[in-house]
Each structure stands twice: as C-alpha cells, then as structure tokens.
C-alpha cells in the first residue's frame, strides 16, 4: 500500500489532545467584548462626550468625524490587540513595553498610563454625579413633577459636600466589586452593560415611534412652564440664532478635523482590554484582538444610529440650538439637553426618564469599575516583578480580595476625587492627561513594530506570525497605530479647544512621572540586588541556547 497520498484527497490533519489538567481562564469572549465596549460606551458618549462640539466647532461634520475617528480606533485596536495576543498577561502596557523594549521603559509607560487612569477615575466619578445622576434626577423630577427629586438633583449639582459623598459611595461600591474577584466583577460589568442596553433599546423605540413628529408637541407642552412660550421649540431655535449660533451650519471641513480629534478622544481606547489579557480565555488566538475590534464596531454603530435618530426625531436645527445654548444664560431648563431628558420628553413619559436615567448611571458605574481595574492590575504586575513589595499583591485568604492593591487604588482615587471636587487645578491635569495615554500607546505601537526582531521566538510561535510580502503584519499594524496616536496628539496640540491648552504642562507631567518611575526602578533594583537578584534579571528572558 502506498505510504503517500495526494494532499487534496487526504483527510484533514488535526491536533490530537490527551486528557490533562488545564488552565481555565475566567473571562469569556462575550465578557471580553463587553469590557472593550465599556472603555468608551456609546450611551456615555451620546450623553456627555460629543455634542459639545456643536458649539466649539460649528459645522464640524459628526458623521465624517465618527467614520474617521472610529476607523482610527479600529487600527489602534488591531495594532495593540495583535501585540497583546502574543503575550497575554495582565499588566497592560507595563508588560507589553517592558518585555519588548526594556523593563524601565515599561515602568515609565505604566506610570504615565496609570496616572492618566487615576485622574480619569476622579473625573468619571465627578461626571457620574454631575453629568448622569444629578441631571437624571432633575429630568425625572421635572418630567414627573417630583419636587423632591428635582431638589435632590439640584443639591447634588450645587453642593460640594453632597457631590463628594455621592462620589465616594460610587467609588467604594466599584472598588468593592473590583476586589471581589472576577465572578462578581463580570456579573457587575455585564449587568451594567445589559441595563445600559435596555435603556438604549427603549430610547430606540421611543425615537422610532416619534417619527410622526410628536416630539415638538410634547416638548412645547413640557417647556412652557420654563420658557413661558407656547412654541418653545421654535423659540429656542430663534434664541440660539439671536445669540449668534448658526443652527444650520452645513459642513465645515476645517472644523471637522478637531471633531475627529474629539471622537478619537474616546474611540481609540478599546485596547484598554489588554489590562485583563491574563484572564481572557483563548487570549492567544485572534479572538482576543477580535474582541477589541468588535467593540469599535459596536460603539461606532451605537453613536451613529442614535445621532441619526436624535437629529431625525428632534430636528437638526433644534438639536444644534439646544446643545449650543446649554450652559449659557438663555438655556431655560434645570438639566442639560442630554438624551435622557429629550427622549423622555419625546416619549412623554416619566417611566422612560427613569429607565434612561438608571441605564446611564449603570453604564457610568461600569465605566468607573473598568477604570479602577487598571491600577490594581498594574500594581500586581509591579509586585510580581519585584518593583513593588510583594505585599502589594497580597490576596486575603478568606475573602480572596487583593486588599492592598485595591486599598491603594481607592486611596489614590479618593484623594484625586477630593481634589476634583474641592480644588480647582485638577482639571488642568485632566485635560493634559490625554498625553499620558497617547505616549504609552505610541510605545506599545513601537513594541508591535519591532516585536518580530526583539522577541522573535514569541512572535513566531504566536498566531500573529503572518507576513505581508516580507514584512510582518504586526509591524505594519504597529506603524498604523503609532501614526494614529501621533495624529491624535497633533490634533489635540493644534486645537486647544479639545482641552490641551497647556502642552508644556503635559511635557512637565511626563517628565515628573518618568523621573518618579526611574527613581522607583533604581531603588527597587538596589533592594532586589541586596536580596540576591537584580530587577533586570527578574523580568529578562532566559536565553534558551
């Protein structure tokens, strides 16, 4: 009998496996996708993060900006997702840059990114209270005529003490969830996302049902007690026009570029999922990168569909007018014109206001929880590498809570939140913190570019060992993600209206944090050397030959 056979006629050659114990990771593909979506969930974007550009950059075309911004997000997810797939360990940029470039570069990068996240936590907490909870209470109170809820909402918006207390409660709840382990954490994450989706589904139905144009009637009926006008809808459009706002600006391509920057401010971070790479099932397959890529599509479709619906249901001129008037002297309502408020009016329903308010708060809690994970994971990685004392990674045996890392994260978060509430200068740090995220992203992109040469065996043994011609695909992807981070940085530097008003402050913070990382690294290195093993060796690759 012939020992050979034509390839076409042969049965498929598969891997045979035997019964053996195995690693079971906790985070499944669906949970990983939800995690990536929650890095910048579309309900949060629609409520808080985008429509301010109507005023700042009139004529900036949102649809073009969404398209380009999320395309950039796609390339960022591919580049950094591919890198993380080759070495899926928890610790994020610290591990990816540290293992590819140098441990010290990894630590500097991680200090930048972790501080960015901690500052973001303070602002997400504040936004949760003053951008979601308080306005939702006011909206529900206003629509349902509940003076108590109205009062609670306005108190939260105006009283620093209550703002602080409410924020601390949110922080403690989310930290407790982070510390409770993956089982409860993933339930919390998925519940927050599911509640958020329910809210958006209700909004979708209400807005579609409003296709007949009942919004104007409902709005006029509701607004009369605030504007004292029978046709508040057109009154507000005219008011905005009188204030010099072009409510029908068409497309201004010059102003579209900064709006692309604004979109990139939230669209390019689905790679945040690398921070849980060590816990994701099948993290060494394309499924891991696909989760981050999929999240870009979900969030893109979410903002696109709902922006179209908002403009269709509320009217483009009105939507531009009311968002532009918001915060000014001629804005008549006690709550901002976010979708919770407007959709509830469209539905002419207090119940809709409740559902949308709760769903937005749930999404914001999910976002806060997700951000709190990163510092905990970074500290774990530092401790396991000997940079921080191993006690930092101590897990309580009874409760299984990483008490020290969670406690430190909560302490930093509360401190920064207090600064955000009672101080006036943290906002200056926050607006330049984007640089603290973009530079680590550039470093990870460089790591992706040079991985096939710096970590040849790792790259070859991964599913990412694909070449396009003679060039590794991961190198090309790294070039793209680097270009995107650089483009985003240039846009933020060129348009101070996006927040980066003091670029030299950003350089100062980068330098201070880099210096802090260098000091920590060399102190830790000295301590470890006295204990018999240099820090560099603890993380360096053993040559196999």
């Amino acid at each position, binding site marked *: 009998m012939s*020992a*050979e*056979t*034509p*390839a076409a006629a*042969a*049965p*498929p*050659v*598969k*891997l*045979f*496996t*035997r*019964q*053996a*114990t*195995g*690693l*079971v*990771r*906790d985070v499944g593909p669906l949970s990983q996708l939800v995690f990536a979506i929650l890095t910048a969930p579309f309900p949060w974007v629609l409520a808080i993060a985008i429509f301010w550009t109507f005023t700042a950059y009139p004529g900036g075309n949102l649809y073009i900006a969404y398209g380009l911004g999320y395309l950039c997000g796609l390339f960022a997810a591919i580049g950094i997702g591919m890198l993380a797939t080759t*070495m*899926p*360990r928890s610790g994020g940029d610290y591990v990816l840059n540290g*293992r590819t470039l140098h441990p010290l570069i990894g630590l500097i990068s991680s200090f930048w990114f972790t501080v960015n996240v901690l500052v973001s936590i303070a602002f997400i907490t504040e936004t949760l209270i003053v951008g979601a909870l308080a306005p939702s209470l006011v909206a529900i109170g206003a629509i349902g005529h509940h003076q108590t809820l109205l009062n609670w909402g306005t108190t939260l918006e105006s009283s620093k003490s209550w703002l602080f207390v409410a924020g601390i409660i949110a922080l403690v709840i989310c930290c407790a969830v982070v510390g409770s*382990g*993956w*089982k*409860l954490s*993933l*339930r919390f994450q*998925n519940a927050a996302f599911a509640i958020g989706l329910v809210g958006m589904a209700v909004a979708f139905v209400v807005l579609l049902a409003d296709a007949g144009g009942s919004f104007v009637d409902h709005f006029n009926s509701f607004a009369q007690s605030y504007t004292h006008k029978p046709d508040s809808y057109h009154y507000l459009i005219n008011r905005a026009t009188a204030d010099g706002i072009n409510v029908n600006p068409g497309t201004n391509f010059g102003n579209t570029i900064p709006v692309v920057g604004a979109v990139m401010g939230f669209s390019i971070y689905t790679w945040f999922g690398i921070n849980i790479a060590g816990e994701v099932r099948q993290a*060494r*397959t394309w499924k891991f990168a696909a989760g981050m890529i999929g999240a870009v599509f979900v969030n893109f479709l979410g903002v696109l569909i709902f922006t179209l619906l908002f403009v269709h249901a509320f009217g483009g001129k009105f939507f531009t007018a009311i968002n532009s008037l918001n915060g000014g002297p001629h804005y008549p309502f006690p709550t901002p014109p976010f979708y919770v408020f407007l959709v509830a009016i469209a539905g002419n329903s207090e119940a809709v206001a409740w559902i949308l308010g709760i769903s937005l708060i749930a999404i914001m809690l999910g976002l806060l929880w997700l951000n709190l994970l990163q510092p905990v994971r970074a500290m774990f990685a530092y401790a*396991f*590498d*000997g940079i921080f004392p191993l006690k930092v*990674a101590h*897990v309580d*045996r009874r409760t*299984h809570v990483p008490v020290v890392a969670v406690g430190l994260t909560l302490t930093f978060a509360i401190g920064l939140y207090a600064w955000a509430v009672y101080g006036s200068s943290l906002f200056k740090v926050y607006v330049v913190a984007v640089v603290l995220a973009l530079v680590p992203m550039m470093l990870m992109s460089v790591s992706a570019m040079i991985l096939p040469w710096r970590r040849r*065996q*790792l790259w*070859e*043994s991964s*599913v990412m*060992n694909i070449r396009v011609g003679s060039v590794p695909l991961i190198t090309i992807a790294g070039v793209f993600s680097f270009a995107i981070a650089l483009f985003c940085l240039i846009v933020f530097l060129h348009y101070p209206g996006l927040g980066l008003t003091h670029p030299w402050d950003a350089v100062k913070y980068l330098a201070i944090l880099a210096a802090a990382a260098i000091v920590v690294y060399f102190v830790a290195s000295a301590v470890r050397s006295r*204990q*018999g*093993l240099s820090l560099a*060796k*603890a*993380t*360096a*690759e*053993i*040559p*196999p*030959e």
Partner: protein
Amino acid sequence: MLRRRRSDPSLRLYYASDIHGSDLLWRKFLNAAGFYEVGSLIMGGDLCGKGLAPVVRTNGGWRLPVAGEERHVESEDELEQLEGLVRQSGFYPRRMTVDEFERLSDPAVLEALFEETLVESVRGWMALADERLRDTDVTAYVMPGNDDPWGVDEALSGREKVVACDDRIVRIGDHELLSLGWSNQTPWHTARELDEDDLYARVQTLAEQLENPQSAIFNIHVPPYNSGLDTATELDETLKPVLVGGQPHEIPVGSTAVRQLVEEYQPALALHGHIHESRGIVTIGRTVCINPGSNYGTGRIDGAVVELDANGVRNKHLVNG
C-alpha cells in the same frame, strides 16, 4: 562601624513547574542555572505536553497542524522550522505516513503513540540536561506531575546530572527535599491522583523520615487548599466551567491533605505548581509557600529563585524568563 556582611545562603535554587511539553521552556529551565546563578534546579512536575501534531507525508511534502491551521510544506528546512514552532507551543510533532495517521482513529493506538512520544521527548530532555550541566556544579531535581504518564519515571532515572526525586527524600545542600508529584483528585482523572487521605498518608510517610522538618523543602505538585495558590475555575463532569449567575465560579482546588501537612511539619519552604493561574507567594505559619504559575504557551517560563539558610527562607523572587 561597617555593617557586617551577611553570610552566603546555604542554598540558592530555581524552581519551575508545569512546562507541559514546551521544548523552549525546558531549554530555558536548564539555562536558568547560569542565568540566575543558582546551584540547584527543581522541576515540580507536569513535564509532558497535551497535544500530538501529526506530520503526515504527502506527495511532494508534509501536512501538519500549526496554530489551529493545517499547513502544507515541501522543503525539509521549512518543515523543521514549523516543527520547532509546534514544539515551542508544547505540542509534539510526529512524522508519519497516511496509513499511520489513519490508524490513530483507534484510541488504543493513539494512546500508545502518545506515551511513546512523551517518554521519548522527556528522555531527550534529560540527555540535554546531562549535556548542558555536565561541566557545572548544578544538579537538576526533576519529578513527574499528575499529568505525566508512568513511562516518564524511567526516562528520568539513571541520569548523570538529573536526580529523579519523586516520592522520596534527597539531600540538597544542607536541606532535605521531600518530593511528590501526585495530586488530589481532578476533574480530568489524570495518571497520578489520590484521595486526600491517601495523599496525606503518602506524604506523611516521607515526612516522618525527615531529620529536620523545619529546614526541609516540600516539593509537592499540588498546592495547599485555600492558600491563594490554588484558586481555579470550578469545572463540571464534562470539564466545562461551572457558571454561577452566568460567570465562571472560582474555588480553591488545592489539597486539604497538603495544607494539613504543611501546617503540621512547618517546613522552611513549600514549592508547588499544578494551578497555573494561581501564581503567588504566601506563608502558612513559618512556611513560605510558592506557586510560580505557568504560562507555558507564551514562551516565557514562570519560576522562582529562592535563597535559604539555616533559619529558613532568606529571599524569594518570582521571575519570568
């Protein structure tokens, strides 16, 4: 006054476990001696991989599975490169004819080939250890784990620089090394599993032979129960994760017997593996317990460098090489 320099440790060792067939990691394990400047290497079991990759001869080339895809190569150089990649991932490339490949549908044939391949591989690894450590003072202490077939014991024995240490006590510097590769019962029903009572009795028999339990090193594959070194996802009879509220349910899966033995004998150091995802260092009483974890598929070997003196563990470091 100058601070007096502390005396050198009596023992400096490198420990790793659960490399599951990764040729790359075994080579790194051997080189860890020079890299971390240790005199003893301890491998805590589960040497063998979990997958056999048939490399089937076809007209004008070979077909083999690589990273989930079937690849067809024609040149010997290309084939050797891909076989290297398969080995790095912890799988065993095995060249065969189509007839031999088709016979693998018989479970008995497959099992026999698996064992033959695994043992052959371990034998090759031990030969490499002898070769690399021959002109050094380094000794490698190696034991099989619960996942390793019985033939591995024979492959470990009779080596020049490798001490097969399973189920016995050996001297390592001024310390005694007590080793056992067996585990408590797992959902996989692997080769070397015992009920807790039997596991206790087996280790206790060894421990009673220790001259000085407090300076001893326990090298027991399965970690102590509820130690933080043994947290894993609960599995059902079909090996699927148990979901509670839609999420995987984490439980301690270590051995209650090992926990009791560590508490009773209080050795200086207890080295464990088995639960790949539960990397860490904890103390139980005065005993420092270490599970370095394992991410063998990534090409990096998780391990621990430990220094001991007469008083116990002086320094311990988790390392990732």
